[in-house]
Structure formats: structure tokens, C-alpha cells
């Protein structure tokens, strides 16, 4: 759509600007402020070496390890949830009562508070009282997510797939719904294979919403805190200590405000950088469709 230039539009944006400035800019400035000071017994002392905390963190393995675990986690769940979500969406009923039933049931995990999601899986995976743990134990699988790092990882990934695949599926479904029947009829006349229909009709039409799905899933999985905290508490050892868990440990547990603030800033910048790439791709896709 052609937009007109109108500087007065700023007035319409003003309420949002004030609100977000209050709840984002002030806290962010606080973080920046901490990152260049030394907190000791409630007093703050300016650092001689302004970037000391940043340098220390970059030289320390702790943040790198958390970042590596985080990257593996996010990459894994994206690799599972995106194709699975598309697959499920392709098999959803298009209309009728069943479509509504599927939509409601699929949205259910999305509206469960995150710590309850953690609680559900914590219980579900327990070998003594949980259905999953009990069944695995009964068929002879040595499964214990509190002791074994691999089991903990598998539990968290299955949990995340359970929690969020529906989001991808619903997005893909919305994309599929927008394809006119005529496209399928044309494909039929051309005797296109099922794969060709998917590759040349359905996938291009879904690209826009899939980018939103990837962006949302990336952002949220990169910030994941509550669910793994409830299920594994970051353990066994540090095996599932992702970035947010490590950060909260540092800031609220050990009260190392300076390093925690430096950690926060670098954490935020990493998310920002990757999200910016996704966002730019998304906007360009939008534009191309518009033309």
C-alpha cells in the first residue's frame, strides 16, 4: 500500500513510545550502568578499566559454554519443530467441526503457564509416578532425567516440541488456508506430483508465515528460562544451564551485578543480531509478495 508522508503520525505513536521508554529504556540504562561499575556491599564504584567485566566474561568459559548449549538447543528445536509443524499443518482438516476441534486442542499447550508446562513434564518424566518415565522404565530403557545429561536434554527437547510445535503448525495452517482452490486445480490438470504441489505451491505461499514462526521460535527458545528451570534446574551439573538460567544464577543468586549486567548486554546483542537478520529477510519477503 502507498503510504503518505505525515510527520504528525508521531503523535499517534507517542503513547507507545512513553510506555515502552518507561519499561524498557530505564531498565536497559540501569543494566548498562551496572556493567561498567563494581558493586560492593550496596555501593557502586566506577571501574578503572571500563570494560573489565566484558573482558573477563569473554575470557571465561562459563558464558561460552552456556552460549554453546543455548545454540545447540535452539538449533535442535527449530530443526524439529519447523518441519513437524508444517507436516502437521498439511494434515489438518481444512474446514468443519474437526478443524475447530483440532485448532482448540492444538492451542491448549500454548496457553499453559510456563512453569506449569515444566511441572507437567517434571511429573510426566518421573520413573515412579510419571507415565512417560514409568513406561520407559518398564520396557527396560535406563531413563532418569535428573541424573543423566542426555536424558535431561531429550526431555527438554521433547517438552519444547510438545509446547511449541502447535504454534508453527497454526502459522503454516494459516498460510495454507490462503491458497485459492484454483491453484490446486491447475496443479491437477498439470498432473503435478504431491511433492511438486508442496514445493511449488504450498511452500512459497507459506514462506512469509514460516519466517514469522522461525523468528518467534528462535527468540523464545533463546530466552527459555522457566521450563528447564522447573524440570532440571539447569542440571545435572550444568548440562542444561542455558543462557537465561545462567544469567539469573549470576544476577539474583550470586548478586554479581557487574558481570551479570555485562552478560545481559552481550546476550541481548546476540539475540538482536540474529533476529535482525530474520526480520530483514521477512520484510523483504513481504515486499516481494506485495509487488
Amino acid at each position: 500500500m502507498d503510504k503518505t508522508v505525515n510527520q504528525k503520525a508521531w503523535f499517534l505513536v507517542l503513547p507507545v513510545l512513553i510506555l515502552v521508554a518507561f519499561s524498557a529504556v530505564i531498565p536497559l540504562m540501569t543494566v548498562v550502568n551496572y556493567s561498567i561499575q563494581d558493586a560492593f556491599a550496596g555501593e557502586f564504584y566506577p571501574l578503572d578499566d571500563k570494560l573489565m567485566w566484558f573482558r573477563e566474561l569473554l575470557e571465561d568459559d562459563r558464558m561460552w559454554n552456556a552460549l554453546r548449549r543455548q545454540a545447540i538447543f535452539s538449533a535442535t528445536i527449530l530443526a524439529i519443530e519447523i518441519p513437524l509443524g508444517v507436516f502437521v499443518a498439511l494434515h489438518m482438516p481444512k474446514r468443519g467441526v474437526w478443524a475447530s476441534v483440532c485448532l482448540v486442542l492444538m492451542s491448549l499447550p500454548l496457553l499453559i503457564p510456563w512453569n506449569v508446562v515444566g511441572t507437567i513434564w517434571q511429573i510426566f518424566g518421573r520413573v515412579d509416578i510419571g507415565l512417560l518415565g514409568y513406561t520407559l522404565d518398564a520396557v527396560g530403557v535406563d531413563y532418569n532425567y535428573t541424573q543423566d545429561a542426555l536424558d535431561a536434554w531429550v526431555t527438554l527437547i521433547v517438552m519444547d516440541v510438545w509446547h511449541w510445535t502447535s504454534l508453527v503448525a497454526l502459522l503454516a495452517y494459516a498460510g495454507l488456508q490462503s491458497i485459492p482452490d484454483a491453484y490446486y486445480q491447475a496443479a491437477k490438470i498439470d498432473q503435478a506430483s504431491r511433492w511438486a504441489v508442496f514445493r511449488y505451491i504450498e511452500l512459497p505461499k507459506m514462506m512469509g508465515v514460516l519466517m514469522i514462526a522461525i523468528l518467534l521460535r528462535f527468540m523464545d527458545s533463546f530466552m527459555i528460562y522457566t521450563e528447564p528451570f522447573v524440570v532440571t534446574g539447569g542440571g545435572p551439573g550444568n548440562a542444561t544451564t542455558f543462557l537465561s538460567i545462567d544469567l539469573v544464577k549470576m544476577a539474583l543468586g550470586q548478586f554479581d551485578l557487574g558481570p551479570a549486567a555485562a552478560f545481559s548486554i552481550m546476550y541481548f546483542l546476540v539475540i538482536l543480531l540474529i533476529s535482525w537478520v530474520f526480520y530483514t529477510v521477512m520484510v523483504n519477503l513481504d515486499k516481494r509478495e506485495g509487488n
Partner: protein
Amino acid sequence: MADMTASRSLPRINWVMLLYLLFLMLPIYWLINMSLKTNDEILGTFSLWPQNLTFQNYVTILTDSSWYMGYVNSIIYVTMNTLLSVAVALPAAYAFSRYNFLGDKHLFFWLLTNRMAPPAVFALPFFQLYSSVGLFDTHIAVALAHTLFNVPLAVWILEGFMRGVPKEIDETAYIDGYSFPRFFVKIFMPLIASGVGVAAFFCFMFSWVELLLSRTLTSVDAKPIAATMTRTVSASGLDWGVLAAAGVLTIVPGALVIYFVRNYIAKGFALGRV
């Protein structure tokens, strides 16, 4: 022809969807199952359904004010947040969808970056900010803190829906002598009613499920149900039945809201961009 394809692929629909829905429902079923058992039965025997059906766990929650006030608190701040977020997002989304202005693209992305900010980064500064202005442990503090990620999302969703409304409608209304506020409320709002509903749904959703900030910003008076649950787990040890019942009750409001917006869910999740 569309009917033919639908009927031919019907058996496959059932299998994939059945398995997927089974996968989704099993953990939830297990939670409900546990909430209807006594603690002895949970720990003592393993059964796929309750042997001695009991509603005692639910009674415990609904008669103890430290439990049920958690739900009331959550609903209060979620409602405040939803109203606030949608109200400020509406004019902003209109501006983004209709006009070019200095720095609009940067502003839009900057708004989105707040959706990307990890709550863990903001927990401590928020705690200090709201303590210093005397808002700690109030509903409005949590509602304001949640606008951090809900306002950008609401703007994003509403902008998507508003782009779908032809600009000619605005121009015709102005020619007919409508003032901007009157046009916005009388003509424009009804056109994007589903968008407003979807935006409100998402604000509700993300405010309802968030724990880290709401727990950090409250202690007694505004303590959300999610935080009440975590405290009880650590304090009384293993009251699994009550924990499961509390969990089931947190799912209910979400399920109700979904039912009301079921026809817009798919479009809503696509942020109005389909």
C-alpha cells in the same frame, strides 16, 4: 474437485492428527489424572486412571485464600495489561500502517527488539525501578512490566490487520466530514474488530504464561498463581495432588479464551499477515 481431494486424503488426516493430538493430550491427561488422586495413591500405586476418585485437591485450593487469591491476582494484572497494551497499540499501529514518518522503520524495529529482550535481563532492573517508585508488589507493576513484550506484539499484529483495510475507506470518511477520533471509533474499529480480538488474545496469553517477571515483582499482595505454585513445591515438599490440581486450574482460563477466539486463531497466529 476440492471435495475429491479432501475425501481421498481423509484416512491419512486421521492418523497424523490423531497421533499428534494424542502426543499433546497425554501429558495434560496425566496431570488431570493426578489431580483427582490422593497423595497416597499417586505415590503408592501406578494406575492409568484414579482408583478412588477424589476432589479434595480442588477443595483445598478453592477454600484456601493464599491459593485462590493467586488466580485473582493473575487475572487482575493480565486484564490490566491487555487493556493497556491494546489501547496504546491501536493508534500506533494505525500510524505505522498508514503513514510514512521520520524514523518509522527504525522505530518499528526498536519496538520489536523489546519483544526479543530476555526477561532475565530485565528482572533485576525492574525490581529496582518499581521498588524505587513504590509500585513493588502491586498489580499495576506487573501489568506495566508485561507491556515490555506485549505492546510490540500488539502493534505488530494490529498493523498486519490494518494493512488489510483499504485506505480509500479512510479518505471517504474524511471527505464525509468525519473527524479522526470519530472515524477511528465508528468506522475503523468495527472493520478491524477481529484484529483487536486477536491482539487482546495474544496479550492475555503472553501475560498469563509469564512467570519470571511477575514473580520478581510481587511478594504477597499481587502474587500470581504461577508463583504460588513454585513456593508450595519447595515449602511443603511433595503435595503432588494439590500441585496437579493447581496446574489444571491454570489451564482453564486459557481454554475458555481459546474457545471464544477459535475462528480467528489461525489468522491471529499469522499476525494478520495472511
